[in-house]
């Protein structure tokens, strides 16, 4: 008698790359984090309530009134000309010079990552990335069975010298790296920026080792002092693929990102983009274009920047007040995130249920590594909750950490446990 119950009768048909996709315990726990009583320091949602709603309404009405038929039509694969021209201005605000023809508009920066994975990654191909790195990029490359190797970073961002050993080891094994992925400005999740010296050293090594760099720059304009470091793309446009987005400086809801790449790569990406979705939504492209053309968008960026700076300060102040001495954290100069290091032997994933019971949420560090490291780390975001909520959230988190320290001491005494104690 056949007894097997087929819950998913399509299982045997899936491609190998889909086999690793499972329901995660962490994701399920985060269902609780959406409850109002929980202070979520987990998500990286921009504070879109700071947008001028009347201005957005006016712009949207303008689009329907003036270009309704076109806006509601299919578009071209590369994105509308008018928006690509505006995006040249956005990049100019960061002193990056590009031509509208160099730009491919994508469905958020995330689609850019997906298309790059599709274009470059054969199963097993190597992608280098900072450790820790943006989880969405790791997932995009992994979904094409790319193999991530992490590069060391510190308070000044990626350490270019760490490339020497990695490249030597790869060469020894007869391998090369397809891409080097980096978020040089206010990195997600570490919150730090790559220094000017490091940028030069990285480009120097990329030329020496013939590396193709993917520069992901969602947070560049959100520097708390309004300062900008030279983008890698500006230093070597033939060797750097640049990813931009309006998600952090306007709205993630319009799903407007873009890729700037050398022409042969850009042409391939455009074909892949057309295969994926024919074209970007014309409607949101026109809304974004009118926003950039008719509104003082840099003033909005300034409002966001001030808001995030104030919230970041609230988080840093409270961390200093509340956390035990053996915790350490990054001091962001912009962006959305603080990267926290727990006391020795503590595991941020293990701690999450206690944190949720104490009504605070964060993202465990392991999510930002492809190789299982990051157990002792966590990402705290300050972009969405108010400063008061952030202070309360950090207070709760500090209570959980102190409680955990006490629990560990109940087992191990006050001495630092060895690695063998923490399997």
């Amino acid at each position: 008698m056949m007894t097997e119950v087929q819950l998913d009768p399509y299982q045997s048909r899936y491609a190998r790359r889909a086999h690793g996709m499972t329901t995660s315990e962490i994701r399920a726990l985060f269902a609780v984090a959406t409850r109002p009583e929980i202070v979520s320091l987990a998500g990286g949602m921009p504070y879109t309530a700071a947008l001028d709603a009347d201005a957005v309404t006016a712009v949207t009405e303008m689009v329907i009134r003036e270009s309704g038929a076109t806006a509601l039509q299919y578009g071209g694969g590369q994105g509308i000309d008018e928006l690509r021209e505006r995006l040249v201005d956005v990049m100019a605000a960061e002193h990056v010079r590009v031509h509208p023809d160099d730009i491919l508009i994508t469905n958020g920066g995330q689609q850019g990552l997906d298309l790059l994975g599709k274009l470059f990654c054969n199963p097993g191909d190597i992608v280098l990335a900072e450790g820790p790195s943006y989880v969405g990029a790791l997932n995009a490359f992994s979904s094409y069975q790319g193999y991530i190797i992490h590069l060391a970073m510190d308070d000044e961002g990626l350490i270019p010298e760490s490339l020497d050993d990695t490249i030597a080891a790869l060469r020894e094994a007869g391998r090369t790296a397809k891409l080097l992925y980096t978020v040089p400005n206010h990195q997600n999740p570490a919150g730090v920026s790559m220094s000017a010296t490091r940028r030069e050293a990285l480009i120097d090594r990329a030329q020496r080792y013939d590396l193709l760099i993917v520069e992901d720059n969602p947070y560049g304009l959100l520097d708390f002092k309004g300062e900008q470091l030279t983008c890698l793309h500006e230093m070597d446009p033939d060797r750097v693929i640049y990813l931009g987005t309006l998600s952090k400086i306007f709205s993630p809801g319009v799903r407007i990102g873009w890729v700037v790449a050398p022409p042969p790569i850009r042409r391939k990406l455009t074909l892949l983009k057309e295969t994926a979705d024919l074209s970007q939504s014309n409607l949101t492209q026109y809304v974004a274009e009118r926003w950039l053309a008719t509104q003082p968008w840099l003033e909005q960026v300034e409002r966001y920047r001030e808001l995030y700076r104030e919230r970041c300060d609230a988080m840093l102040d409270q961390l200093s007040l509340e956390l035990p001495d053996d915790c350490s954290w990054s001091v962001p100069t912009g962006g959305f995130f603080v990267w926290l290091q727990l006391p020795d032997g503590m595991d941020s994933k293990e701690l999450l249920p206690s944190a949720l019971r104490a009504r605070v949420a964060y993202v465990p560090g392991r999510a930002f590594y492809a190789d299982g490291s990051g157990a002792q780390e966590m990402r705290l975001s300050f972009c969405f909750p108010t400063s008061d909520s952030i202070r309360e959230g950090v207070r709760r988190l500090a209570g959980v950490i102190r409680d955990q320290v006490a629990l560990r001491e109940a087992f191990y005494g006050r001495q630092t446990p060895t690695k063998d104690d923490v399997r």
Partner: protein
Amino acid sequence: MTIAVLSGGSSLEREVSLRSGKRVTEALRGRGHEVVALDLDEHLVDHLTDHSVDLVFLALHGKAGEDGSIQSLLDLLGIAYTGSGATASALAWDKSVTKGVLRRADVQTPDWRVLSEDAVREYGAGRAIARIAERVTFPLVVKPVQGGSSLGVRLVETAGDLAPAVMSAFQYHPAALLEQVVVGTEIAVSIVDGATLPAVEIRAKAGPYDFGARYTHGATEFHSPARLDPAVAEACAEAAGQAWDALGCRHVMRADLIVDDDGTPWMLEVDTCPGLTETSLLPIAAQAGGLNFEAFCERLIDVARNQSLAA
């Protein structure tokens, strides 16, 4: 009749519960019932009153829905509900209590010990973990005394791994169950309205039947009826029936067992508010017993309503 499907809440099993609740809501609406879907929060009593709810279908997983507190509240409000009453829920929710009740009723359950967080923090049990490790036999499974969905559960093979596993369990509940491992076939036996459904055999395709294996389509192989010798299948069903009686369950229950190489069923735990998602064990058993999901939901509604009319 207005039925409220109650799910969600702030339990760590919120997501699983929402999935169960959504599925039940759709099934009952498909059967033409007037259904209101409620997320458990501080407005529960107001919502029940405002919607003039006659009967609550409990699709809650985790503390509030399974420890008997919601059942007590609904008893006080005089609103009928599906599943076991407050006492049976409370007994089944605490794994150490359940195992004690089972053993008294002569249902085989693996040996166990309980280590509480108070004992560790206040009475020096943490520093004596090596001595405790000498008193148990490895391998063992360490799990939170209260909680579901395999959250916080760890297999411990050596004494050195005991303390981290206990700390992990404490993240979910301030007492850890140290349970002897029984090697064998994982079996779930469900009872609906007193009738025992075909057993479900569970084989995770890789590693243990953990959270990912439970809730990912295709990550686990299920057989129902389980591929057991008829006498063994009968023994499993009998054990489930004994547990049902001993705990005083009603309407619905799922018992999780391991059948060892000698064919002896060992009961691990009992769930009075079992998962009802697409990958959950109870709906699989119901289907194998000729009861599709809609009919199963209807049956629970009927039995809950009839019981309240008779009361």
